[in-house]
């Protein structure tokens, strides 16, 4: 491996960033990986990405270079790039399937942004380097059986103990990869006498702590990637507290904003999922059906429009903090995903193949994508909640009434 020096600074233009990343990839990405990606050989790329020893090596190299975390400050191993420049880095990596996998989204995008904003120096030293190198997997412990859209109604308790540690008890749900994760972003109630938004504290929970049990939940797709998590008298050191006691809701807003902004994809306008469906429809002959064709073109338009909105938003945001405007893209993505999921099952040479398949065979990808297409209209805040956010924060309409908002949490349910 050569040691091509990687120099990326915030004043570099997008073409300059792309060239620097490409040159570095040429020097560092293993040849067979590059060849498989360039040839568009899905099977070969799939085999490579499934080889944990190789991906571990690669993510270490990538993390050391700074390219896994381009928007992070230089002192924490990033390049301090604005969102637009960081988007270019991700886009170049994706060309070679060299980016960090989707399951690192909670870590890189959510934990990273939240710790950079709220963490102490010690916490940044402890959590950011392994995050950068892909050595720790993160999960989110926000939702609860009784706190979904009304997230601030969470009931998991964290009680201070005499030795300065916290004792955490409760139940979380919908936590993707919690059964594999090393660290969890946890919100717990530390002051039940305060109104619900004010009695919450945010912790970075070591998922290996005694008392943490993650039980996979089977989703409507048949997969079991998310979990319910039981927290039974888990002892959490105070060094794992992120932000001040009682300020957990404000810390969580940083996480939620990063989530909405991160979901609608890379800031680039170009071939996407609709292009893939169009190509498949042309190949199968479904494209010859004028009604189906019109729906596919409409989906293409919707996807391109959403891409331009993402570019627009990245360019506008610069290095600034994400805004409620991310809800617009999140909402659009949810609708588009459902449309594409539905179309995907209609464009095969034999559409019946999406309905039934050999008993010993895997579920067809289009059928799986259709079932998964409800993901974004629920995960990360339902579409109904996103509409409330858009209406309240961007249009200035009245906030939703919440008779419990000003009550001490312990008195909720009595109204």
């Amino acid at each position, binding site marked *: 491996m050569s040691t091509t020096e990687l120099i990326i600074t915030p004043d570099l233009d997008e073409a300059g960033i792309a060239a620097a990343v490409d040159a570095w990839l040429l020097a560092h990405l293993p040849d067979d990986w590059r060849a498989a990606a360039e040839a568009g050989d899905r099977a070969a790329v799939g085999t490579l990405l499934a080889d944990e020893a190789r991906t571990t090596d690669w993510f270490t190299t990538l993390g050391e270079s700074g390219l896994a975390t381009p928007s992070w400050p230089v002192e924490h191993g990033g390049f301090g790039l604005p969102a637009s420049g960081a988007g270019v880095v991700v886009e170049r990596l994706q060309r070679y399937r060299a980016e960090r996998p989707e399951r690192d989204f909670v870590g890189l995008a959510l934990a990273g942004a939240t710790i950079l904003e709220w963490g102490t120096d010690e916490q940044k030293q402890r959590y950011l380097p392994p995050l950068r190198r892909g050595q720790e997997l993160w999960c989110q412990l926000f939702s609860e059986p009784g706190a979904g859209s009304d997230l601030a109604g969470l009931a998991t308790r964290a009680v201070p103990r005499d030795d300065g540690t916290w004792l955490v008890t409760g139940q979380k749900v919908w936590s993707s990869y919690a059964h594999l994760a090393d660290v969890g972003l946890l919100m717990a109630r530390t002051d039940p006498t305060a109104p619900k938004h004010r009695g919450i504290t945010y912790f970075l929970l070591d998922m290996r702590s005694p008392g943490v049990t993650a039980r996979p939940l089977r989703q409507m797709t048949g997969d079991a990637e998310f979990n319910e998590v039981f927290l039974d008298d888990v002892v959490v050191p105070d060094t794992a507290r992120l932000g001040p006691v009682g300020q957990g809701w404000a810390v969580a807003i940083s996480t939620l904003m990063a989530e909405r902004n991160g979901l609608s994809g890379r800031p680039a*306008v170009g071939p996407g999922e609709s*292009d893939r469906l*169009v*190509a498949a429809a*042309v190949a199968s002959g479904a*494209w010859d059906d004028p009604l189906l*064709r*019109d729906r596919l*073109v*409409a989906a*293409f*338009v*919707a996807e*391109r*429009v*959403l891409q*331009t*909105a993402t*570019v*627009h*938003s990245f*360019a*506008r945001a610069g290095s600034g903090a994400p*805004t409620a*405007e991310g809800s*617009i893209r999140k*909402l*659009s993505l949810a609708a588009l995903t459902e449309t594409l999921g539905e179309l995907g099952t209609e464009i095969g040479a034999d559409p019946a193949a999406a309905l039934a398949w050999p008993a010993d065979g895997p579920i067809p990808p289009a059928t799986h994508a259709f079932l998964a297409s409800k993901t974004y209209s629920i995960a990360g805040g339902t579409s*109904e909640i*996103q*509409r*409330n956010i*858009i*209406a*309240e924060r*961007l*249009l*200035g*309409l*009245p906030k*939703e*009434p919440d008779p419990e908002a000003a009550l001490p949490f312990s008195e909720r349910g009595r109204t």
Partner: protein
Amino acid sequence: VFAEQSAPVFDRTPEQRALREVVRALLADRAPVSRAREPAEHGRRHDPELWAVLAADIGVPGLLVPEHLGGSGAGLTELAAVVEEAGRVLLGGPLFPTAGLAVPALLASGDDEACADLLPGIAGGTTTATLAVPTTWRADDVAVTADDGTLTGTCPLVLDGADADLVLVAARGTAGVRLYAVDGAAAGLRREPLATLDLTRTMAHLALDRVPARAIGAGWDAVLAARDVAAVLMAAEQVGGMDAAVAATAEHARTRRQFGRPVGAFQGVKHRLADMAVRLELARSATEWAAWQRPGAPEFRVGALVARIHASEAYLQTAMDMVQLHGGTGFTWEHDAHLHVRRARADHALLGTPAALRAELAPLIAGVAA
């Protein structure tokens, strides 16, 4: 509408921002939306003094025109910003037909001589112009024939057609369909003003009987190339209209009270308004992206069609929602909401319907022959 983010992203230079601000202030002063219905209600084509400021002083019709032809050689982004401001107040008159249709058509023609003869007058604000093509923008639908330097036939719907000084007419000659320049005052040209769905723009039916005409440049492909530029500009105009519609509707929802609350407190209202804001933001992004591409590049046509398809559908839905959320008041003649409905519906068909544009987009994205 979006307080902290109203400056569109590709409006980057101070000059571009200044241009938008100047035009916005001028239109707010001289052409508020309360005057938008004058073309239909008072038979008033436009405010000539306003046009003099826009055209001669600010140089709007010359924005796309190169400097050596009397323009400023600015880009589509600049003109789109101006047109968006015009859309915000539902401005009619010669602005769009001249700057949005005729100028792109002349530039796309590649006919240097015609450009040298015709563009300086347009850029200088002394000539208004328009384009007479079928509303389907299909060469097969052209109903004017060229013979021995004269044109004969009809063009059923031409923006500003009764008054424009110069009419660029699509006509079929021996070498196929191309544009011809016709003097608005030429003998044999009959221009009949029409009653219009869109109360804010004048339209006319043109009948040509051996009208002297000058052939211009290339064929139908050049007309379609100009259509792409016009599509981006009309999308920008639609964004302006939508922005005004969303802002007015949000204001109404914040202030109109029923059941002891502002109606905007009800999710039925709130969520419809949120969807309006989403469509607007997407239309703005797609339009600015399209305006930012280089005309003539392959991605330009795709970007233009994408922006136009979305903006046309978005504006119509937004205008209908504006009526809905204003209730009975929104259904009255006095209220501005129906001006948006009328313009949005007319725009939906001008320059090609969304369905027709999707059919045009289909072979481009499938990589197969039409």
